[in-house]
């Protein structure tokens, strides 16, 4: 056997080597930007230099053929420069205005929608799902594709009051993070334990420590050390499942989908906000999740119709009040919406301010 190669601990590559020259030249010296049309950004530097960015939808889980196709376009119009956004959109930059329209055409002809800028619905933040993760309750790529098909026009136009950031997560861990709309798995039944396997694969004290409600305790079943769950306490969060796969939390019927709204990272206007539960109990209806799409579209419809310019989803709802949001979206309100987690009291209405 050949000797193994020592890694070159080279760290993070330098970004400038990959940037279009106009970006290197005007690095840190940009003056302003605007959007000539949806999907296109124009950034103007103090020097007067201009760069156009054409942004397109992409599928993140990309095959090499697709990537090479993008490379072809970048070679043709952008001297071989290309970037991806934090949301896995693809961006093509050129300082030549004349190339913008052909670039757009090339992308759309190839099936890649141009859009996702400004007040559009951006690409959905994408996680792993059944394609790769070891704990998913649903798929990621499929949910994202199904939703984006429905939101295609909203991606290509800038008709929303502000940017809309949608996230998905294929288990309650929620690698997709906070979103204006977040589409997440919500388990509704405690884990089903395969007692035969626990002692073999699970470090039991670590599993016990991971339960947020201390519902797990050591047990003996058929003389073997295992774990058991106090089903009255269990909040079905699934946190025990990654460290202990025999505590199967996923269930084709009882792992449901929940929709959350009003999350926001930016400190713009309002402080950052967590997303809030609005719909749950939606079936995990692969391959097209129509019930979820319906809820998402209802929410977007109400937001689009009623929010004021620049109001993010959460800001809009805080202004009009939750009673009106539920009324407008016709979503049912249940006891499960009432926060009963630690500090949940801060989410109760401690005032005489009321909406009728």
């Amino acid at each position, binding site marked *: 056997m050949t000797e193994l190669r020592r890694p070159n601990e080279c760290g993070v590559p330098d970004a400038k080597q990959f940037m279009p020259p106009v970006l290197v030249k005007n690095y840190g010296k940009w003056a302003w930007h605007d959007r000539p049309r949806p999907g296109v950004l124009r950034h103007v530097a103090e020097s007067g230099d201009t760069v156009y960015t054409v942004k397109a939808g992409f599928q993140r889980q990309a095959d090499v053929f697709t990537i090479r196709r993008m490379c072809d376009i970048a070679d043709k119009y952008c001297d071989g420069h290309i970037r991806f956004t934090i949301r896995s959109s693809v961006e093509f930059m050129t300082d030549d205005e004349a190339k913008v329209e052909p670039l757009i055409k090339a992308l759309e002809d190839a099936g890649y929608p141009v859009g996702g800028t400004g007040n559009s619905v951006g690409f959905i933040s994408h996680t792993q799902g059944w394609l790769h993760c070891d704990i998913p309750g649903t798929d990621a790529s499929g949910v994202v594709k199904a939703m984006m098909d429905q939101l295609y026009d909203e991606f290509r136009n800038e008709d929303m009051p502000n940017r809309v950031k949608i996230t998905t997560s294929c288990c309650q861990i929620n690698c997709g993070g906070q979103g204006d709309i977040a589409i997440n798995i919500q388990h509704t039944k405690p884990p089903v334990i395969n007692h035969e396997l626990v002692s073999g694969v699970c470090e039991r004290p670590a599993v016990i420590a991971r339960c947020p409600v201390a519902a797990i305790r050591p047990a003996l079943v058929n003389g073997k050390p295992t774990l058991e769950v106090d089903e009255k306490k269990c909040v079905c969060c699934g946190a025990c499942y990654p460290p202990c796969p025999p505590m199967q939390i996923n269930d084709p019927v009882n792992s449901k989908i929940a929709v959350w709204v009003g999350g926001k990272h930016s400190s713009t206007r309002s402080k950052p906000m967590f997303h809030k539960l*609005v719909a749950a109990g939606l079936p995990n209806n692969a391959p097209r999740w129509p019930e979820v799409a319906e809820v998402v579209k209802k929410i977007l419809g109400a937001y689009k119709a009623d929010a004021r310019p620049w109001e993010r989803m959460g800001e809009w709802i805080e202004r*009009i*009040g939750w009673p009106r949001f539920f009324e407008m979206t016709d979503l049912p309100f249940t006891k499960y919406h009432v*926060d009963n987690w630690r500090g949940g009291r801060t*989410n*109760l209405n*401690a005032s*005489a301010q*009321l909406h009728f």
Partner: protein
Amino acid sequence: MSKKMPETPLLDQLESGPWPSFVTGLKRLATAEDKPYADMMKSLLGQLEHSYETRKGYWKGGTVGVFGYGAGVIPRFSEVADRYGESAEFHTIRIMPAPGFFYDTKTLRQFCDIWEEHGSGLIALHGQSGDVMFQGCRTDQVQVAWDKINEMGFDMGGAGAGVRTSASCLGPARCEQSCFDTLRAHKVVIDSCTDDIHRPSLPYKMKFKFSGCANDCANATQRADIAVFGTWRDDMQVNQDEVKKKVTELGRKEFINQVIRMCPAQALALNDDDTLDVDNKSCVRCMHCINVCTKALKPGRDRGIALLAGGKRTLKIGDMMGTVIVPFMKMETDEDYEALVDFGRRLLDFFADNALEHERLGEMIERIGLVNFLEGMELDLDLNMITRPRTNPYVRTDEWDEEVRKWNDRKAGAAE
């Protein structure tokens, strides 16, 4: 022979300055040599001066009461009775005044006379909960003083683990903002609890307060276990001519600054013709614009109350504001007021059955959860109870479909 006035160099410093001085009052009592309480008050002044010198208090509790009642007298025995013997006993009798703290002078003079005869001549108008506090009574005078006050038509106030004396803003008596009859509600609710006031056997104290609107002149939000607020469901009343006058009076810019911009719901807009555009669906009934434009704006006509539960001061878990448990109850007819009384009774029962010892209502709700409280009290869940839905996924939603059905049924019912 009467006692010598004590030296009170520290207290004397509180006689200077423009504000009415309680020390001057105490001294006036102490030097009323013709009165039975003069020596008691000299002694009291001595002890108080001693407190000022040593920066410590010298009262301790004990057990003093009146026949038939288990509370309402606050017993105070001096820890330094050896030196200030005449005020060794200095109990307080708590008496419930009329709602809104209205008096005629005849009543007040009668109070004074009784308290000159049987007490110290010192009366607090009023305690923070709302009692008249007849302060400074010897044990042997408590019953007789009480008998006389009671015969005037006044009853004992609350203390200990029971329902407390209530407070209400003066509401309809003199305030145009009032959305219900605070004084009536105060009386009927509290009168239905006399047993729990006079023979306290609840897990802990229980306070009701009544404010006619969101301005909360009764300090109900944080200082009452149950806060009753007036509010309205329909559109606010707008007199556009008066709006225009107000715009002229303040100037457009200031009107925008003081009214439009300060609306917490961004529910107001000033039209180009200086009339006001109110988005009543967004309005949260905060009262601000109405406060500024007393002539132009008024609460709507479909009035009633909202109930908040759980306000209290800091003990054990930190201060709590009350939170909404009933967003709207009509409060017009006799039946409406009966329904409020009934709510109060059911609340006391639930509290008695479910609170731990020394646990306030807010702490109990926090412990058992709002939803369980609502279910126990058979109150409908409402979106006005929350500021926002849950932000964490730590909830078990097995019965989702069933709960959705309940909500839809209720909505259908309400629409009928």
